[in-house]
């Protein structure tokens, strides 16, 4: 398998999932951004207030705009600025989907070391995505 010049089937599947997932993510990101800056969707933090907030830390930004940590933004999904996270989250979550698919491929070919690595990676990324890891802030 490793002596082939062309990419392996598992690698090709990963590439295709990555391609279509990224495409969907980029389109969502651009559409929601348009709805946000044109004012079609009212934002959580008024646009004109942002220049006075973005000069300060993320902790102060969250407090000033009442932006919840972790996945709390889902409750504010109808707000223009928060809706932008749909596309961003698709892009950030894409690798988890690709790895799950990869793990299934390796299970089929019985490459258990690679299955283990792929599952561990899914766990690491899921932990990061869960919002459980909260730093102290400054």
């Amino acid at each position, binding site marked *: 398998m490793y002596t082939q*010049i*062309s*990419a392996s089937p*598992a*690698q*090709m599947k*990963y*590439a295709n999932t*990555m*391609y279509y997932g*990224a495409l969907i993510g980029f389109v969502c*990101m*651009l559409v929601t*951004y348009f709805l946000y*800056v044109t004012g079609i969707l009212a934002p*959580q*933090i*008024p646009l004109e*207030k*942002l*220049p*006075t*907030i*973005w*000069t300060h*830390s*993320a902790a*102060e930004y*969250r*407090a000033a705009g*009442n*932006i*919840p940590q972790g*996945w*709390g933004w*889902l*409750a*504010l999904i109808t707000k223009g*600025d928060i809706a*932008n996270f749909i596309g*961003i989250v698709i*892009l*950030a979550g*894409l*690798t988890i989907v690709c790895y799950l698919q*990869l793990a299934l491929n390796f299970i089929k070919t019985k490459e258990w*070391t*690679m299955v283990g*690595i*792929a599952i561990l*990676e899914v766990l*690491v*990324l899921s932990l*990061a*995505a869960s*919002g459980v*890891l909260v*730093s102290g*802030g*400054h």
Partner: protein
Amino acid sequence: MFYTVKRGLVCLCSIVLLTLACAPAIWAAEEGTAAQSQSMQVQPAAGQPAVAAAQPAATTDAVAADVVVEETAGAGIDAHPWWFWPTALLFFCFILGIIAVMAGVGGGVLFVPLVSGFFPFHLDFVRGAGLMVALAGALAAGPGLLRRNFASLRLALPVALIASACAIVGAMLGLALPANIVQLCLGGTILGIAVLLLISKNSVRPVVEKQDALSIAFGMQGMFLDPSTGDVVEWKTHRTLAGLLLFIVIGVMAGMFGLGAGWANVPVLNLLMGVPLKVGVGTSKFLLSITDTSAAWVYLNQGCVIPLMAIPSIVGLMLGSVVGVRLLAVAKPKFIRYMVIGVLFFSGAKALLKGLSM
């Protein structure tokens, strides 16, 4: 070959040592001046507690209009309309994208020091946007690299696991440390990267005499068709354990500074592990889609991504990269590379000064 590896590793280690050495000393100094560092008071609307994180999201509706932000005297209020900086960022990132492609560096390594130095955004948001920029670039380039076998999934899997886990640690560390310490460490790192780019001479096809046991176990080998020469190039890795250990450091730094990590991935894969340059560059770019994902989640969950600035950055840099690829045929990459190294020296020094003045 040995000399090149040695020089690259010495430089990489010096960056790490500089970063680690700076942190405790500056942190100690920070303790004494903590009272002065607070330059802003945020007063939520009446009845709203100051820490929004403790609130249920549903109760926060329509509170934003009451947000009052008071700047202390001397800090100054930005008089520009809200669209000014995002628009400036779009054009700035467009130019950055062109330069980054022609200089052969990722966008993140230029984005963070330059935007934190010349734009009014807090470093938290610059790092969050920097990671999103690097992630978007990697997701856009990844499929093509994988399909052409210029990026190796088998090479990337073990490396990515280590780097992404450590990037989470780096991101948490970067968000927990005071901004001036991170700014100082960022300055030191950028100066180190500039030196690394200046002295490292990549090897197009390193010679690997014997594949080590770890490399065999992970299947870190392959072949690809080099379209520039028409040759079929076989490759395998050596010094795999040392390479994997270095990815611990690379992951931490990528997460801490939001820089992406192409500047470090390529020398380690190419010079240390013996991966051909094309596969090294391709796998490095693909790796960013995994390493930066884990760090990006931490920043995202902490509210460090402001869409109004992050999305123009992503769009600008991606459009710039497309134009950069077209201009590559007529440009003089060597001159641009030296120009970028000069810019990195300048922005690194500026980050250091900014950190000292905070």
